[in-house]
């Protein structure tokens, strides 16, 4: 059974139709990659899943329940974490406070915190520092760490490699591989090389429509298809 299913989603922002027809299913486990060029509707798809934009018509099913139209905070509480493109850390709060916010009990599970420290050692070092003083890569780590500090069924990650140094991108990729052992990741990417390494299943979105979906292995092997749906922009 698939974990998350988007069925003929259509989302408008004001008078602009951003998503015209988006349907895909994210199976449980592993990394699902949504590829697409700038402005194709990748971020809008994630925001629609989180309830930050309301799709109409169309439906979003998560673990068998229809979550279309639910309040963002309720969607989050059902076990979907969102790591937005701009990282969304609270700069005025310390790293520790940012992390506490992501736990709903106000307490850390020791084993999970230890795992976060192992994945992102920098966070342990800057634990009591305000989040604004972190570098871009560290902010991204904090944002991802916040998503995994509690048990989540699905993590939506929006272009995590954008603007990061190659070495950090590498580390981030390793972290995602490890995280995806226990949690499903829906990753939005423009960086095909990065996506290729991580993804098990994938879809390509263009101009608000899904133009291809399948397994990453098939897609990566088919240069003609890549040229056709991704064009030269990726």
């Amino acid at each position, binding site marked *: 059974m698939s974990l998350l299913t988007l069925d003929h989603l259509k989302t408008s922002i004001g008078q602009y139709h951003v998503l015209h027809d988006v349907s895909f299913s994210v199976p449980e486990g592993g990394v699902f990659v949504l590829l697409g060029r700038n402005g194709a509707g990748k971020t809008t798809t994630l925001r629609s899943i989180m309830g930050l934009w309301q799709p109409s018509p169309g439906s979003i099913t998560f673990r068998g329940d229809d979550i279309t139209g639910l309040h963002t905070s309720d969607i*989050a509480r059902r076990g979907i974490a969102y790591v937005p493109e701009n990282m969304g850390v609270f700069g005025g*709060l310390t790293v520790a406070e940012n992390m506490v*916010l992501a736990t*709903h009990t106000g307490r850390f599970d020791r084993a999970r915190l230890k795992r976060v420290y192992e994945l992102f050692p920098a966070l342990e070092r800057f634990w009591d520092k305000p989040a604004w003083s972190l570098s871009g890569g560290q902010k991204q780590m904090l944002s991802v760490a916040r998503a995994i500090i509690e048990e989540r069924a699905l993590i939506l990650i929006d272009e995590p490699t954008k603007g990061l140094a190659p070495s950090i991108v590498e580390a981030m990729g390793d972290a995602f591989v490890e995280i995806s052992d226990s949690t499903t990741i829906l990753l939005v990417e423009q960086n095909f090389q990065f996506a290729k390494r991580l993804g098990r299943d994938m879809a390509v979105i263009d101009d608000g429509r899904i133009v291809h979906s399948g397994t990453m292995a098939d897609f990566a092997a088919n240069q003609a298809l890549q040229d056709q749906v991704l064009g030269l922009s990726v």
Partner: protein
Amino acid sequence: MTGSKFIKTVVLLIWAALLFAPFLFQDVRSIEVAARICIFIVLVASYDLLIGYTGIVSFAHVMFFGMGAYGTAIALDHIGNGWGPLALGTLCGLVVAVALAALIGLLSLRVKAIFFAMITLAAASVMLVLAVQLSGFTGGEDGMTYRTPDLFKTATKLWTDADGKVVRIADVKLNGKLAAYYMVFAVSAVLFWLMLRMVASPVGTVLQAIRENEARAEGIGYRVVAYRTAVFCIAAAVASLAGSVYAVWLKYTGPETALSFDIMIDILLMVVIGGMGTLWGAAIGATLLVLAQYYLRDLMGVAAEAVSGVPLLPDLLNPDRWLLWLGICFILLVYFFPRGIAGTAMARRSVKG
């Protein structure tokens, strides 16, 4: 010393001065000023919970203050001066304030900040008109003068010596006035401490997260409207209690002392001068403004005397022009401390690490 520690030390010194105020400054006016500072620290700090910690701009804070004051005053005036009516009136004021805050919050915290501000302004105006119009109940424009529990009467002797005379410590009579002052002090200190505890708790962190990025707070599972409404209710409850205490202290409640928009403007000025989002700033802002309101005239009188030989200066420093100088002080404060005194001092710490 870091900016943050410095501000906290200053605020603790203010509280220490307030604790010993009846013994340090032995005249009637000083004790009035000290009591007013206590009450305004609480009132301004509770407003800071809204504007500084959650980014809610409300003009109804004075209304909740007034509800507490009028609740207590009406009970004391209409039922009698016992502890029962005092408790009943305070409780009624509190319940009405919280209920109205919940209603306004749930109905209108979803709308944009400017509309919310307008709604609170309208509510506060309606309440002021009601207080003036329902004169049989509230005393109208004239307000109400009433008696408080006997413990707080000036003639009450807390402690008498062998001759039946009231005992003095360091020349201060242990009478009902002193008891009333320490009631004001104790309630204010406890409320201020509770608010400090609240903002240091996980709830306080959520509030700061909401202020910083509402959508992100929603995205990690916090219901922003619920939190905002809760804070609005808590601030209203604290303001209402401050109002009740003020009503007992003054033994008079009227539109001028409990509901007027002048009070609202004072609260806003105190928050801005002290610095938003720190609570410590509220204490500094309230102390400075109340002191200026009471003593700037005297100070200018002394200054005018001192420069009486110099042309023009005595005219400029004429005590009647105190409001002009107060205004100049505000402009200078805002210029040199754009984030308020505490805000600017505490920010300095975080830049230098």
